[in-house]
């Protein structure tokens, strides 16, 4: 019978004794679930945290890149975020998914980084070759439309001012709640909502302009 390890809320983990006869430690990391890895990392197992990095760093980088619009800044943000996560693992309560917790740390680091960048240098032109195309599609014309829309959206997001960009990326792309966004960006919930509406309006005008708006949207 499987051993049910009691853990707070989402961190209820069922370990398989046949795969892991010695308990949680010692099992194959690549087979472990994220919850198992988090528990092992919280218990101080560095290799478990390395495996978490292996599985999550692409998503974390994607978020950082969308928040900063700069590949080098995104790299720095992701490294800083994992270091902060590693240092504060004991404060991860397990009442949210680890991915959401990590996203919040990335958002916080990116907010700090874009704040610093605004103080120290001018905005640079966005890099055009950052998003990879990997999704196959049977209908080439439909596929082209989807890719075109995605590119337009990515371009429009990159062109938003950082304060609007961060809110719409966190809320509408990564589905973080308003209060979490406000907390990580150091603003009030109502300010976050106002920024979100403004960002949505700008994107809507740019990507889906109504008749008569085309000229203004360019």
């Amino acid at each position, binding site marked *: 019978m499987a051993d049910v390890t009691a853990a707070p809320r989402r961190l209820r983990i069922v370990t398989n004794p046949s795969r892991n006869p010695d308990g949680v430690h010692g099992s194959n990391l690549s087979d472990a679930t994220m919850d198992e890895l988090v528990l092992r990392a919280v218990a101080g197992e560095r290799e478990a*945290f390395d495996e978490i990095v292996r599985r999550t760093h692409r998503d974390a980088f994607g978020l950082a890149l969308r928040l900063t619009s700069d590949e080098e800044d995104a790299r720095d943000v992701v490294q800083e975020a994992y*270091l902060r996560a590693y240092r504060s693992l004991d404060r991860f309560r397990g009442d949210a998914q680890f991915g959401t917790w990590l996203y919040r740390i990335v958002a916080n680091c990116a907010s700090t980084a874009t704040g610093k960048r605004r103080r120290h240098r001018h905005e640079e032109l966005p890099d055009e070759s*950052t*998003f*990879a195309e990997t999704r196959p599609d049977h209908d080439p014309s439909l596929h082209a439309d989807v890719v075109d829309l*995605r590119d337009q959206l990515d371009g429009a997001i990159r062109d938003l001012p950082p304060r609007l960009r961060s809110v719409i990326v966190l809320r509408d792309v990564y589905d973080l709640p308003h209060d979490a966004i406000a907390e990580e960006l150091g603003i009030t919930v109502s300010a976050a*909502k106002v920024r979100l509406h403004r960002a*949505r*309006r700008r994107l809507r005008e740019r990507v889906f302009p*109504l008749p008569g708006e085309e000229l203004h949207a360019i």
Partner: protein
Amino acid sequence: MRSETPTPTPLTCVDLLDELAADPDAVLAAPARVHVAECLRCQAEMANYRRLRRSLRALAGTPVAVDPTLEHDIQLVLDAHDGRLSRRVPGYAAATLGGLAAAAGVIVLATRQRRGARLAG
């Protein structure tokens, strides 16, 4: 004297700008519903906000090109925090070591075969 209930001022498109941007799927209040039902522009605006929301959500699943050295760099940062020397072998070094090991294996095999052939002869 008769008291008259004031007739509500009809909403305009501008009044609904924020409401539609806030949540295009929300159930609108009665005056807003009346306006949208009669206003093609607001209907189009609402449809576009819905489309925008779906498209933005789909971006989260879009893979981003990641430099393969990023994972290694993250682990170096963690190593530095742990105060230990990097126990990781960079990719090029691993390839070199792998190549050397393979070459050594080939030499050993060839030597054994030659020795076996000499003994048989």
